[in-house]
């Protein structure tokens, strides 16, 4: 099999591949890549280089991992997972990503496609108006420094107190929508200035809000889907993909600088400047963890305010209340984050960068109604091809620190995609296929063309066959909003 690397890659199974520590000086553990043979062959050279760099970081346990949607990133590959001993290991902003708690949220409804189709154009226009997107977009929530600090510490809970959502939403958000340990004093004034006006905004790049349909023939696990309120029959659901916006980026940038200096003091060598890190228990490590949690909570709040706006938009266009339409939150989960979790080795700082937590059935961390099924894992595909809902498994807890894929993963650069197609052309083609797209930037739309991404069905197949998630349902787009 021809791969984009000269390193030795051993087959563990048809979905798991391993680069042994002998392949790079300084590797402390093997690197494992989850992929079908076809996906592995197409993986860019950066994945092999970066995942083996991660395997050199102090305190790493078991393996440095990369999921099948993996591709080149900064420091860690996108799709990267690594767990470090909480006492002797490190924490790295490069293992979290710039967009702290970039994540996915899914809202179900009792509506069928036939209920929405006559109003779809109006609905997408209303959503586009209520959920600001694109470069420099500000939100409608007016915050001062004090109230923004409340957002940092209380996350989605702050939103519920302000009337942006329902109390029961919190039950189905990772960590209840608020991570304990966020300390606003560890956040720079610059980060606050960048984030204070952005609550309730989508951003740009690959972030989106999508109205989707679940048909009965695309439900693969009816029992689990039903437990999550996914019933098929051309059911309407709404997916949101966004994170902590400029605020999280500034936190990451600030601490990369702090860590560059700290590494010299702690004598930590790294293979790549973007892997800047500090001991987790050091002052710098703890400060970053506190600031990162502020950004993570802000991202939960961001998606909560957007959910409120989605419910308001549906109610305004369809003339019924969100409660009447059954617009319940299915789940909200991060895919760019570092968290302290307990495994047989002890407490580990699990970094997931473009990877979703995937807790299996029985996990006490899950809300009671999901303990039989395992955790919902929301995976966004390209705007042209659709998305998937998966369930966490015991296999993920055992093999991948309860982690799995997060999306389809890019195969083509943004610059190449823009040369291949125009945004207006994509918008027209998608309309002909029954998908209404509203975009702030036509060049941004071209960058997100379906052909720039891996086939998400193949990525889903890889994690399903590897046993780290179970496929529950496929979700097809009928309306999309992009920045």
């Amino acid at each position, binding site marked *: 099999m021809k791969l984009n690397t000269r390193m030795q890659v051993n087959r563990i199974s048809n979905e798991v591949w391993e680069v042994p520590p002998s392949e790079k000086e300084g590797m402390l553990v093997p690197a494992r890549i989850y992929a079908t043979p076809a996906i592995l062959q197409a993986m860019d050279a950066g994945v092999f280089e970066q995942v083996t760099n991660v395997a050199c970081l102090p305190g790493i346990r078991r393996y440095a991992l990369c999921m099948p949607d993996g591709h080149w990133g900064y420091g860690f590959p996108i799709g990267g997972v690594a767990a470090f001993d909480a006492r002797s290991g490190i924490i790295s902003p490069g293992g979290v990503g710039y967009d702290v708690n970039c994540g996915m949220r899914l809202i179900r409804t009792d509506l069928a496609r036939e209920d929405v189709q006559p109003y779809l154009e109006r609905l997408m226009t209303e959503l586009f108006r209520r959920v600001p997107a*694109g*470069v*420099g977009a500000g939100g409608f929530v007016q915050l001062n420094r004090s109230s923004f600090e409340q957002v940092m510490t209380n996350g989605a809970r702050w939103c519920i107190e302000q009337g942006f959502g329902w109390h029961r939403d919190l039950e189905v958000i990772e960590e209840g929508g608020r991570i304990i340990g966020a300390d606003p004093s560890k956040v720079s004034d*610059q980060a606050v200035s960048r984030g204070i*006006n952005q609550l309730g905004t989508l951003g740009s790049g690959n972030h989106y809000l999508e109205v989707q349909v679940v048909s009965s023939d695309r439900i693969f696990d009816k029992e689990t889907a039903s437990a999550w309120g996914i019933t098929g029959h051309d059911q309407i659901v709404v997916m949101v993909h966004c994170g902590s916006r400029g605020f999280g980026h500034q936190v*990451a*940038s600030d601490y990369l600088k702090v860590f560059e200096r700290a590494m010299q003091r702690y004598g930590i060598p790294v293979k790549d*400047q973007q892997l800047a890190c500090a001991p987790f228990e050091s002052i710098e490590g703890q400060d970053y963890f506190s600031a990162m949690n502020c950004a993570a909570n802000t991202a939960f709040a961001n998606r909560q305010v957007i959910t409120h706006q989605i419910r308001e938009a549906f109610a305004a266009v369809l003339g019924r209340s969100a409660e009447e339409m059954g617009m319940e939150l299915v789940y909200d989960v991060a895919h760019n984050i570092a968290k302290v979790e307990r495994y047989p080795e002890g407490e580990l700082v699990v970094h997931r960068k473009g990877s979703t937590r995937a807790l299996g059935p029985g996990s006490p961390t899950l809300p009671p109604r999901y303990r039989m099924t395992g955790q919902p894992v929301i995976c966004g595909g390209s705007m042209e091809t659709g998305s998937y809902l998966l369930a966490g498994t015991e296999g993920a807890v055992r093999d991948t620190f309860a982690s799995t894929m997060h999306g389809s993963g890019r195969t083509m650069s943004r610059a*190449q995609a823009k040369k291949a197609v125009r945004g207006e052309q994509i918008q027209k083609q998608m309309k002909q296929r029954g998908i209404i797209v509203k975009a702030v930037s036509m*060049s941004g739309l071209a960058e997100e063309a379906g052909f720039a991404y891996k086939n998400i069905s193949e990525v889903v197949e890889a994690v399903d066959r590897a046993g780290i998630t179970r496929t529950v349902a496929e979700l097809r787009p009928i309306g999309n909003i992009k920045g």
Partner: protein
Amino acid sequence: MSHAFHFLDDVATADLAFDASGDSLQELFQGATCAVIDAMADPLTVGSMWQQTVERTDEDPAELLFDWLSDLVYWKDAAGVIFSRSELTLTRQDHGCWKLTGLLYGEPVNGSAQTLRADVKGITKHLYEVKQEGMRWHARVVVDV
């Protein structure tokens, strides 16, 4: 005196990368600044009613450029603006430090009047380099979008 930039096809799968160059360090800074401005919006569609002066000093010109480009990202979010152009003056001070005085021009974001492009969220150190080859200065920059 001239500067130039071009975006790269085969670097930074999910983000944007560019090479900038200039006949002098100041021209290099100007070229890289134009690239970041161009990544955010078509500068020909952006007015200049908003202005902001930024001053920075650093011994290392590469760090100075990195921080200056990060300033553009900061003001984009903090002031809710995008940019039409910039005026830069880069001088070497007696003690060896480089001093940059940058004047940014732009206006508040208005998608109906401006051709908006990517929301640049950060300047990264991935593949980042500033170097002199012959008489010309070059930089490679990957921006997170």
